[in-house]
């Protein structure tokens, strides 16, 4: 048990804890943004486990994919839900796990007492809140009715797998250190044996782009009118303080695009 192995066990403990705590936090925290961050922490824990298993290219791929992807997904979450900050939900009574994972949020009640007028101003400018009303019961909550059953189903699935892995540990384990230069080996395999997987993944990415663009149908859905015009959006930021020579990049893409449209 030299220093290396002790460090390995410690690192395994830390990464396993991060990934399980992150996954738990994702499901229980009240604020949507925070649940995205917890899921990202869980994926980073799993990436750490990948690096411990000497699959470092996979670990880095995992981190890169899930930091970018998660932040984009959080943007969609904020767009869809009318209480992403979790203020309204934080004030409701919650079992222990939810209260622990959303302990950083300040409940809505505090804002009530501090400045009553300010709360009303926040209320009337998003219409969706008005018709649902602020005093409704649990239908605003993030959980469906079958939450206890779901908890039991999840628990039984976990127990079944854990017992399976504990009671039948006779995997044909081979004590062999894999080749350290993983990117070279993966490249050779991708170009050789798995050429079809490489091109198939390219086609799948293409289908993903086509599907997303077709479904989102850009340009057909201008923003709804009831959203107030935010102060900080202005198309042309102020001119740089002084600009001795004409910058080489001065074509304005907007006109370029409109011009090409007029000709069509």
């Amino acid at each position: 048990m030299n220093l290396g192995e002790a460090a390995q066990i410690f690192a395994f403990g830390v990464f396993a804890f991060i990934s399980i705590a992150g996954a738990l936090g994702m499901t229980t925290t009240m604020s949507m943004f925070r649940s995205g961050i917890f899921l990202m922490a869980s994926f980073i824990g799993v990436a750490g486990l990948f690096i411990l298993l000497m699959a470092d290219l996979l670990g880095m791929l995992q981190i890169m994919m899930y930091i970018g992807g998660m932040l984009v997904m959080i943007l969609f979450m904020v767009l869809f839900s009318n209480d992403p900050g979790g203020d309204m939900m934080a004030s409701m009574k919650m079992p222990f796990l939810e209260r622990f994972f959303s302990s950083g949020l300040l409940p809505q009640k505090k804002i009530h007492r501090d400045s009553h007028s300010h709360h009303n101003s926040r209320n009337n400018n998003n219409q969706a809140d008005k018709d649902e009303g602020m005093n409704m019961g649990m239908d605003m909550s993030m959980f469906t009715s079958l939450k206890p059953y779901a908890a039991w189903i999840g628990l039984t699935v976990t127990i079944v797998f854990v017992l399976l892995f504990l009671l039948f540990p006779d995997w044909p384990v081979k004590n062999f250190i894999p080749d350290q230069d993983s990117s070279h080996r993966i490249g050779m395999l991708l170009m050789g044996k798995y050429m079809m997987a490489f091109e198939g993944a390219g086609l799948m990415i293409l289908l993903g782009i086509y599907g997303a663009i077709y479904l989102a149908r850009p340009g057909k859905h201008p923003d709804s009118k009831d959203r107030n015009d935010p102060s900080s959006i202005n198309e042309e930021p102020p001119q740089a303080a002084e600009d001795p020579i004409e910058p080489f990049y001065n074509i304005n893409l907007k006109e370029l695009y409109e011009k090409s449209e007029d000709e069509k």
Partner: protein
Amino acid sequence: MILPINAYLIVSAVLFGIGVYAILAQRTAVMVLMGIELILNAVGLNIVVFWRYIQPENYSGQIFTIIIITIGAIEMSVGLAIMMLLYRNRKTVQVDKYQDLKG
């Protein structure tokens, strides 16, 4: 190699269980999508564990996981596009409110 193979498998089993809970218990569609991401991730971890402990010399386990992460990414983008559409038509993303097909 001091860590037994079961240690990693238990971690991925727990992640899988939490993913199942996340899908069944959450109301908003985006959280269901995140539950699916979590399950995809637990499976990817399992594959890398089997590659590392059982067949370290053959790297096809890692390529399988790369393809799984690609599927996760593309499924996330198309899923979000579908939710975008639903949000625009129904002004809500509560999954249990989409009951038109119930007839």
